[in-house]
């Protein structure tokens, strides 16, 4: 029933009856900045407007003009209702049919939101939790009056959210005009405002092609003098300065106006005869953030529209939300997230996973390979079970219990149906695993390829298509990565892959590995070549695939719940005041800026716009001052308790204690005029006023963050309800992270508001304090002062000091630690506090930033083993290294048995050399990120991929696959990349493993690191790596297939007992005549190996069966991330061999 016209078929934009107006396409009127005013900051995380007008405008002009004009208030009089994607407003929902498999069934009544109660705008308040705020440009609403209308288009904010009853809301907020400040000389008079405005407006008009055509050429709405404000920068002794507040008609004109004011200059008659440039303030604040700051709205909080203050749209809705209202911006009431407003609304979360049928030997590509299944689950926030479980399949699919199956013959219909489903269920949040970079772009590209025009309407605005573009996300904290940016109006995207990558360090981020790590479950992993086979099979095999796909859609939801992402991220948004969508898409600094803006506003301070230093590379954009001190580590294995004193929130508390802030920094040339009792001179020579003169903003932000954290922690202790606990824990964590990022913000030279005086002073204080602590402790705790022993400070990190009091008892060490913490703390300014938290006992200190120890906070039992900097989770390491290192540490620290650890290492090395280790321990995996021929350097996994492609192009790894390999023995002087081999191939053909390579390249370094402090460098190397245990090695006999000399060898039976060849096969095929007398013993030995293997076989294969979730079907999984993948294969082979040996005993 699709009546969608192709782009270009019809003329004129889609009609919206609400606002009749000129039919001119307003987008063409979008001002385009002249090249020279292209602000360098535009690509910066701060300035990128949520909806980049320029980008969308470009898309519109180039591709589908008529579709896009609908965005915004696009006012035309051409009603073309059939342009609206189907199902947006179904007159009547199709009757629910008992039979599934009905293609047109994507809009089932029970899948929709509960009907919204009728609202009376004159009596009822509308209260809801907002989740997303954006803005569009359009004709001003009638409520703004004719004057505003004359000025042309205006920006209109849209707030999307959900009521406590679970109904969706879209509020159009009118009348909030973008503005910024510029500092003008004190001589600036009130009557100069208008000339200033006119001059600026003229410059804008000259610079902008076309201008705001809909208006009367007004770019600058107003200019007014502000006298009660001051710059945030530098201590100003309470004086105020003169500013002008410049209001523009559209948000993107702020950057242009700023450019003109800062660089080109404005001529103001009466002030000066030539044009003057002025410094601007708060001119780099996103429009939406500006609104949020001004109206006290923080990310994800509850917003209320009081009765009488808003109007409800009934018939001419632009969105698919259940309530749609218009309101003037000053009528919006924002509730601080406390008490009843700390709750979360029951918003709808849609989790999605797709399967594509790739061609043999290729990774799926949207240009060629069809989407064959889309699994979707919808969950209400707060529910523990999904309310909708559904799967769209291409071709038939047998039914699945508890899930709706919708099957299609035509891929276009499948996509179309899913699109309808998405609109009809109206989710607030879209989640999935790698959706942003795989699933969503694939669906969008595929639909475009197939010309399914009515597919890409996922947003909440009727007739508004989603937009996708490539971006590069770059942040100091999270690194640089390329990704897609998809704009789906009104729905927040939350990619679990991005969240997990951001918050956790893991060795692998495959969904399998992540769910194994957090949910304790292995996931079945079906290789994409197997997917095509299943798809080509029957309804049953497709059902199998569907079950797998559904599971993949469910796991992100489970991760979301398990990691409490909703609570944590919404808390973070509330605490820092940024919209939810910023948290994943942007770095740390916007959060700090948001807080500074809010705080500065209260104090009447304005945040200056600091133009970024041109050509600042990431490398020198980093820290240009001296970092934190690390005291020299006295490496060793300490069998005495080592007390650790930590500075609680070191950098935040330094900033608070010394009142370090932009607004308290005294400029160098002013220092001489300050009374010495009013200022603090920092160790690096900067001067800040003390808090009795003026309290800084940053210390205030930090005080609030930390005291809120303290409160949250106290509440957390009291809380009983697990849900409440989750919320509070999320909150305190968010607060901690935020407090710590303030320091980083001041030090980021490529950031918004760098102030190295603050950051370098902070670290300088930190260094001083560590040295001070060391000196105090070592001076006081001596036998001369009556203590049992002299204390040694053996190591000091950024914010902690490790002290060996030289007392053997844990209890004594704890007492001394506590005492020392108090003693030293007393010498610091509040709130800097040295806390005694833990004792390491025993403690293995390897070097700077590398240590391991058993951590005790109470005397009864240790808490856990703490390790730092010991590479147990390196991604490119094989499992063996991790296992050996972990076991060693366990033996040394927990069992206090360094000797046992040494003999364990020797045994393992011996096993390695004797070829007795499980091969899965030796497998290394690396992902093939580009075609093998494109790699510049030779890498083992690339070489192997080439080799495998020669053997069998069908099963060979393709780009995007993880290549697993083992190192095999190669010819002499072979490069290591030549020695990689497919583990299965090596296993099948008995190809010898290069155990020395493993020993030398993987094990040696980490082992020596651990054992050097214990045994001494020389001894460790000679004893561990070159001892007797390395003298015996075993190399399996390769099969003839592996080539080489074995092709010419003849196989003869040899005695199981003594390996001599059997002469009399009639007597026994197992043993020689000499060993025959001990037959029971040799039989027992043969049995033992069979039994061990049988047990493993059983445990391995039943595990796979459990994991795949079916008893009656065979295991298909080929997850190379799974630790037992190779083992279960190997056990089959070994078992056959062992059985054959057993058979020779003539049973």
């Amino acid at each position, binding site marked *: 029933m699709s009546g969608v016209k192709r782009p270009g078929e019809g003329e004129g934009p889609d009609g919206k009856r609400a606002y009749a107006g000129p039919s001119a396409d307003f987008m063409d009127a979008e001002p385009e900045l002249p090249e020279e005013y292209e602000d360098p900051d535009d690509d910066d995380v701060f300035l990128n407007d949520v909806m980049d007008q320029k980008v969308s405008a470009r898309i519109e002009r180039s591709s589908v003009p008529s579709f896009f004009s609908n965005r915004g208030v696009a006012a035309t009089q051409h009603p073309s209702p059939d342009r609206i994607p189907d199902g947006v407003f179904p007159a009547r929902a199709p009757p629910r049919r008992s039979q599934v498999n009905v293609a047109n069934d994507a809009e089932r009544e029970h899948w929709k939101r509960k009907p919204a109660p009728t609202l009376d705008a004159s009596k009822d308040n509308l209260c809801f939790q907002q989740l997303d705020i954006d803005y569009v440009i359009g004709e001003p609403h009638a409520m703004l009056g004719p004057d505003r209308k004359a000025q042309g288009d205006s920006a209109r904010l849209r707030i999307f959210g959900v009521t406590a009853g679970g109904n969706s809301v879209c509020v159009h907020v009118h009348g909030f005009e973008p503005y910024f400040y510029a500092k003008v000389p004190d001589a600036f008079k009130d009557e100069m405002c208008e000339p200033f405005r006119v001059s600026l407006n003229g410059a804008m008009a000259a610079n902008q092609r076309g201008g705001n055509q809909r208006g009367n050429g007004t770019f600058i709405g107003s200019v007014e003098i502000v006298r009660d404000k001051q710059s945030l920068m530098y201590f100003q002794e309470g004086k105020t300065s003169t500013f002008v507040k410049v209001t523009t008609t559209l948000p993107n004109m702020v950057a242009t106006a700023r450019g003109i004011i800062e660089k080109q200059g404005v001529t103001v008659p009466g002030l000066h005869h030539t044009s003057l440039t002025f410094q601007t303030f708060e001119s780099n604040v996103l429009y939406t953030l500006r609104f949020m700051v001004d109206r006290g709205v923080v990310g994800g909080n509850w917003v209320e529209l009081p009765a009488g203050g808003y109007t409800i749209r009934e018939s001419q809705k632009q969105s698919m939300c259940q309530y749609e209202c218009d309101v003037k911006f000053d009528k919006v009431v924002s509730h601080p997230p406390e008490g009843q407003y700390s709750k979360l609304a029951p918003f709808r979360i849609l989790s999605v996973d797709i399967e594509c049928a790739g061609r043999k030997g290729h990774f799926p590509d949207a240009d060629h390979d069809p989407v064959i299944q889309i699994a979707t689950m919808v969950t209400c926030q707060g529910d523990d079970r999904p309310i909708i479980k559904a799967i769209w399949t291409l071709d038939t699919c047998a039914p699945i*219990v*508890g899930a709706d199956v919708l099957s299609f013959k035509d891929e276009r219909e499948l996509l179309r149906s899913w699109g309808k489903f998405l609109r009809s269920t109206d989710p607030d949040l879209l989640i999935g695993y790698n959706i942003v970079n795989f699933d969503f772009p694939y669906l969008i590209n595929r639909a475009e390829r197939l010309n399914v025009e009515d597919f890409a309407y996922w947003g909440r605005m009727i007739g508004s298509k989603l937009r996708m573009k490539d971006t590069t996300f770059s942040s100091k904290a999270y690194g640089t990565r390329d990704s897609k940016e998809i704009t789906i109006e009104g729905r927040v995207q939350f990619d679990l892959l991005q969240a997990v990558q951001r918050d956790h360090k893991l060795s692998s981020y495959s969904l399998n590995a992540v769910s194994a790590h957090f949910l304790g479950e292995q996931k079945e992993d079906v290789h994409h070549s197997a997917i095509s086979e299943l798809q080509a099979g029957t309804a049953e095999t497709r059902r199998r695939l569907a079950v797998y796909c559904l599971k993949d859609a469910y796991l992100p939801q489970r991760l979301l719940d398990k990691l409490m992402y909703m609570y944590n991220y919404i808390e973070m948004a509330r605490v820092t005041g940024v919209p939810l969508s910023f948290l994943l898409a942007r770095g740390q600094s916007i959060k700090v800026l948001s807080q500074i803006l809010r705080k500065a506003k209260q104090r009447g301070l304005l945040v200056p716009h600091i133009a970024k230093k041109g050509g600042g590379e990431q490398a020198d954009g980093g820290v240009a001052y001296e970092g934190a001190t690390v005291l020299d580590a006295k490496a060793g294995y300490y069998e005495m308790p080592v007390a650790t004193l930590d500075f609680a929130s070191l950098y935040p508390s330094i900033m608070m204690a010394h009142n370090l802030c932009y607004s308290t920094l005294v400029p160098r040339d002013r220092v001489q005029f300050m009374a010495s009792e009013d200022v603090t001179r920092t160790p690096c020579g900067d001067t800040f006023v003390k808090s009795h003169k003026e309290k800084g903003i940053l210390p205030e932000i930090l005080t609030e963050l930390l005291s809120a954290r303290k409160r949250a922690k106290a509440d957390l202790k009291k809380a009983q309800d697990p849900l409440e606990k989750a919320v509070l824990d999320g909150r305190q964590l968010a607060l901690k992270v935020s407090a710590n990022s303030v320091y980083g913000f001041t030090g980021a030279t490529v950031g918004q508001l760098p102030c190295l005086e603050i950051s370098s002073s902070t670290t300088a204080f930190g260094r001083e304090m560590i040295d001070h602590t060391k000196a105090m402790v070592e001076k006081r705790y001596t036998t001369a002062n009556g203590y049992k022993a002299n204390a040694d400070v053996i190591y000091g990190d950024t914010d902690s000091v490790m002290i060996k009091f030289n007392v053997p008892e844990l209890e004594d060490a704890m007492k001394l630690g506590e005492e020392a913490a108090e003693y030293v703390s007393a010498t610091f300014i509040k709130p800097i506090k040295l806390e005694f938290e833990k004792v390491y006992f025993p403690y293995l200190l390897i070097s700077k930033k590398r240590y391991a120890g058993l951590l005790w906070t109470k005397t009864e039992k240790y808490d*856990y083993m703490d390790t730092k900097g010991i590479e147990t989770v390196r991604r490119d390491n094989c499992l063996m290294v991790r296992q050996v290192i972990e076991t060693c540490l366990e033996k040394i620290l927990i069992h206090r048995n360094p000797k046992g650890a040494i003999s364990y290492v020797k045994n393992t090395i011996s096993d390695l050399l004797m070829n007795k280790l499980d091969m899965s321990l030796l497998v290394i995996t690396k992902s093939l990120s580009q075609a093998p021929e494109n790699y510049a350097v030779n890498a083992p996994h690339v070489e192997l991929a080439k080799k495998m492609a020669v053997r069998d192009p069908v099963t060979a790894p393709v780009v995007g696959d993880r290549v697993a390999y083992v190192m095999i023995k190669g010819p002499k002087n072979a490069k290591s990349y030549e020695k990689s081999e497919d583990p299965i191939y090596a296993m099948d053909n008995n190809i010898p493993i290069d155990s020395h390579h493993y020993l030398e390249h993987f094990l040696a370094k980490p082992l020596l690191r651990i054992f050097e402090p214990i045994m001494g460098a020389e001894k460790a190397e000679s004893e561990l790596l070159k001892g007797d245990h390395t003298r015996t090695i075993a190399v399996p006999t390769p099969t003839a297939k592996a080539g080489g000399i074995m092709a010419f060898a003849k196989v003869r039976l040899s005695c199981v007992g003594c390996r001599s060849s059997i002469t009399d096969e009639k007597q026994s095929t197992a043993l020689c005549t000499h060993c025959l007398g001990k037959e*029971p013993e040799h039989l027992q030995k043969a049995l033992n190996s069979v039994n061990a293997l049988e047990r493993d076989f059983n445990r391995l294969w039943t595990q796979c069966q459990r994991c795949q979730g079916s008893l009656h079907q065979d295991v298909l999984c080929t997850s190379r991330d799974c630790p037992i993948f190779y083992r279960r294969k190997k056990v089959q082979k070994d078992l056959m061999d062992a059985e054959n040996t057993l058979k020779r*005993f003539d049973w």
Partner: protein
Amino acid sequence: MLREPNGVSDASLTLQRAVLDYSARDERFALDKKIYGQYFQLYFQRLMLLGPRLKQAVGAKWPGVPAVKVLDLKEGEECVVMGTLYKDMKLKPSILDEYVKEAGAKASEVAAKKFVSDDDSLVLEDEGARVRLTGKGVAVDCFVTGVVLAVKGRVVANGEFEVDEICYPAPAPQATRPSATDEASSAGRHVLLCSGLRVGDDAASSALNLELMCDYVTGNLGGANEQGVAASIARVVICGGALPEVDVPAQSLDGRAQAAVARPLRQLDVLLTTLAASVPVDLMPGDGDPTNQALPQQPLHPCLFPEAKRFSPHTFASCTNPHDFTIGGVDFLGTAGQNVSNLAAYTNVVKGGAGGDDDAGEALDLMEATVRWQHVAPSAPDTLACYPYKDRDPFFIERSPHVYFAGMQPAFGCRKVRVGDAETVCVSVPDFSKTSAVVLLDVDTLECHPVTFGR
């Protein structure tokens, strides 16, 4: 026995050893060429073998209620679903635990004897799909993975199946037992069942009790009464645990360790020779005995018994475990107890309470359950290692035995279990090394009682 040199042998004192027909049906447990494939075929075969009998039982129990495949379930409609159970258990040990160990706590060191927890749950799977079971009609703690059964109930809103009642497969046919014959002597005719002899393990059982047992069976102990009873023993079945449990390292042994392994073997050989000279002996392997450990266990290799093997096949038989045989028209089926012990670890049966046999209560409950399930070892392969059969499942009950026994149990106990027309006596054979007891089973009346030595 010493006798007067010139005395005439007293004919009345020469007791004749009772003789009964014996035939074994162990071929189905014998494995020749092993091929290690996957396990799904075994489950599939099981469902195929028991399916028809399950249908039959369902038809009789719930006439008129439609039987539905899991895939075709519709919400709210009462129906019957048949399939294989899968029990989801949080505490079930997994080989993956070896890889995800947290510092300080070794997951592989499982101290628990029971792996049951409160949030275990059941899933029923037929050829096509799975459905989660809920409701009072199904006691999660009493089941294990692998049981084939039918449930009656309906799908409720969240897609789970609410169970009202359950039904097991109809019992296998049972051979008619010959009625008590006239040749029955006053002492009756007996089969002696024992397990856990642990020959040569001085720590486990006193060598004296073992000696006494041997003398008793061979008629060298006690007065005329005891000897009469001894003579009535027509067969001795050793159901597992004949040798001590030793940790034999897979590596080559030094001289002393070799001796430690070899000595019990020699002693067992002597014991078996002594017994076999007097009475037919069936030797079943059990847990830890020198043969394969996964079910079915293959007979112990004859080379282990250079002396006793000379009595083979007449009065000494090295058998499989499970062991299926007929004596004097009575069908026996039994195991060395791994199936029961494994069930015990994964279930929490409410004590049946029948009989005062407290120690054996759990074992008997579980044995009764397996008889009702018509499957000797349902938990294989999920938690109990077994061979991955491709084309059959030898562990399902294809003829209802008269006597069903399990060795290596903590105490003696027996219980009559009636399923349909078939009546089976379940016997829990005590571990001799712990109880010094063996079981005498009267072939005519199927009554049994323990005989305890020493103490």
